[in-house]
């Protein structure tokens, strides 16, 4: 009985201590947690230096530009573009100086191609007409010879019919030759319009800066041209676009291969595309006169499965960042904890890093400072900057 009384007393003391600790547990617990400062991944500017080297562009030109991410749902936009050293260009002002020698060379090549296409077409037509005349002459001769030549007459008629209907002669198609000729003529016209004086551009109706929009909608990256030339209704677009990762360049190349030049009414086809610099792509697309432009301008389809976000530089440790997330706490309330996210640095300046991750980081809180070390999964006290 004495034991039972002692046990009751001990149990009371034990429960009282536990109750007391429980009352103060939250305060005591919070005091032991690391305090972290976190910022929301929402916006910022990224300054890049992209050396541009291209046959049509002066190889010494360096374009420095500022990417602005207002938030992740908005496109990356170029607000200002810096051209050559100490020279600032506002939107809609020109900044590209073309190499006139290479420009003239390009025009000459286009003219040669135009002449060759024209000659090929002319020769084909002459040969075609000659063959038609020969068939006509031989048919007349056979008719006069009598019924014994009826089989040959029938064969000649069939040959003539095929030539006139399908336009095929000597293994060449009239359609192919005409397409080559029209294309060469078009390119020649475009290039000749860009006269030598126009290589240094400042006229908004020639080659001018519109904007650089790197836009992501679902699985699509949209890239609007930086410099556009649209003579009377639209024919040739030239652009310099940022490529934010190697995967993007590969994806763009695949599209070129897939679409080819023949499907440009359904999708844009690239007349010219090449990578310039590590993260930059120069491209030119031509659109047929009656082609319908895609509603969302130009899109590269990307299926990399990664997301790019602009993260403050001091939030990235090597190839990882720490996000502050919420979970159920011990008493059912929500508590903050840190969650490590591995990723890849794409490009960065002295303030931000374009960080590629497997999960979207829209509006996520990323740790930029802390008062004591922590590990992945540790509960923390959040201190917003």
């Amino acid at each position: 009985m004495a034991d039972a009384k002692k046990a009751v007393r001990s149990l009371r003391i034990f429960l009282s201590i536990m109750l007391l600790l429980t009352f103060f547990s939250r305060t005591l617990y919070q005091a032991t947690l690391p305090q972290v400062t976190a910022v929301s991944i929402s916006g910022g500017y990224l300054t890049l230096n992209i050396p541009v080297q291209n046959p049509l562009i002066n190889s010494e030109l360096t374009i420095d530009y500022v990417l602005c991410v207002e938030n992740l749902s908005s496109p990356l936009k170029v607000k200002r573009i810096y051209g050559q050293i100490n020279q600032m260009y506002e939107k809609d002002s020109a900044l590209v100086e073309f190499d006139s020698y290479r420009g003239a060379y390009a025009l000459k090549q286009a003219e040669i191609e135009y002449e060759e296409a024209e000659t090929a077409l002319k020769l084909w037509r002459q040969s075609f007409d000659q063959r038609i005349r020969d068939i006509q002459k031989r048919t007349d001769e056979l008719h006069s010879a009598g019924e014994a030549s009826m089989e040959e007459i029938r064969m000649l008629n069939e040959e003539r019919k095929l030539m006139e209907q399908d336009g095929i002669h000597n293994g060449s198609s009239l359609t192919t030759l005409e397409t080559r000729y029209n294309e060469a003529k078009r390119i020649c016209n475009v290039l000749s319009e860009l006269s030598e004086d126009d290589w240094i551009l400042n006229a908004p109706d020639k080659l001018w800066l519109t904007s650089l929009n790197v836009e992501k909608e679902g699985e699509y990256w949209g890239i609007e041209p930086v410099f556009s030339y649209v003579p009377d209704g639209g024919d040739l677009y030239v652009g310099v676009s940022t490529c934010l990762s190697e995967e993007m360049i590969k994806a763009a190349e695949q599209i070129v291969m897939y679409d080819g030049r023949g499907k440009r009414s359904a999708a844009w086809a690239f007349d010219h595309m090449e990578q310039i610099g590590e993260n930059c792509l120069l491209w030119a697309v031509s659109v047929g006169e009656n082609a319908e432009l895609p509603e969302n301008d130009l899109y590269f389809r990307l299926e990399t499965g990664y997301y790019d976000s602009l993260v403050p530089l001091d939030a990235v440790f090597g190839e990882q960042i720490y996000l502050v997330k919420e979970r159920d706490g011990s008493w059912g309330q929500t508590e903050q904890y840190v969650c490590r996210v591995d990723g890849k640095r794409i490009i960065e300046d002295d303030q931000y890093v374009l960080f590629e991750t497997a999960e979207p980081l829209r509006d996520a809180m990323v740790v930029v400072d802390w008062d004591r070390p922590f590990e992945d999964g540790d509960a923390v006290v959040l201190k917003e900057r």
Partner: protein
Amino acid sequence: MRKWFGLSVYMMLTVCACLFTLPIILVFCGSFMSQTELKSIYEKADAFVRLIPSPVSTESYYRLLFSNDAYLAAFWNSVLIAVYTVAGQCAVSLVVGFALWQKSIPGSKLMKAVYAFVMLLPFQVTMLPNYMQIRQIGLYNSPWALVLPGMFAPLGVFLMIQFMQGLSNEIIEASLLDTSSPVQVLVYIVGPNVLPAVWALALITFAESWNMVEQPLIMLKDAWRYPLSLRLNQQGEDLAITFAGAVLFMTPVYFLYQMFKDSLLAGIERVGLKT
């Protein structure tokens, strides 16, 4: 010869007792060791088990109680579940036991057989039907998913019936004639007489509820609702916390045993005699 036999039996029982209490002693001693020391003992295959901490450290208790509120939350979860289960089990067992003990109730024999049969079924057999029922009535992820099956466990009823066999039928019949209220008879006559069995049942049920692991693992989804028994299993590699947590985990059961050990022994003894 007889003396030597008695001595050898005594020695053998002493060794058995030591073996049985060794884990508890190890846990108690380990709770005063540092994490490094515990790792050096338990994570090396060739390390020798030590009982004396060197140095004695209360760091694990500090970390358990002051730098982690999960333990306290789980402790009160366990307390609530156990208290509700014990209260419900005792009430249900007393009433049902009294009803089935009275031979005048039709089908009481069959019911007793059913209770005995259900009691013999292992937990793994009744687990799935229990789980499905709990989900159907919307109690999944709630403490009641653990309390209700515990309240209606057949062991208590069986224990009560066995214990009531020792009561005098004449007294009960006389009481019924006197009051004509079975409730009053249960409260004023049967209740006080079966109190040792009730305490024994309370202690057994408390220990069972306090120690359960599988049921909360199946019935609860949110980690913050987990009782201590389950939370202790999730301490991971932190041996110091686990040892200190295990000592505090055993404490209430030990005190309760000290409180009710006489009743427990008396209750089990009388039930055993009747059985």
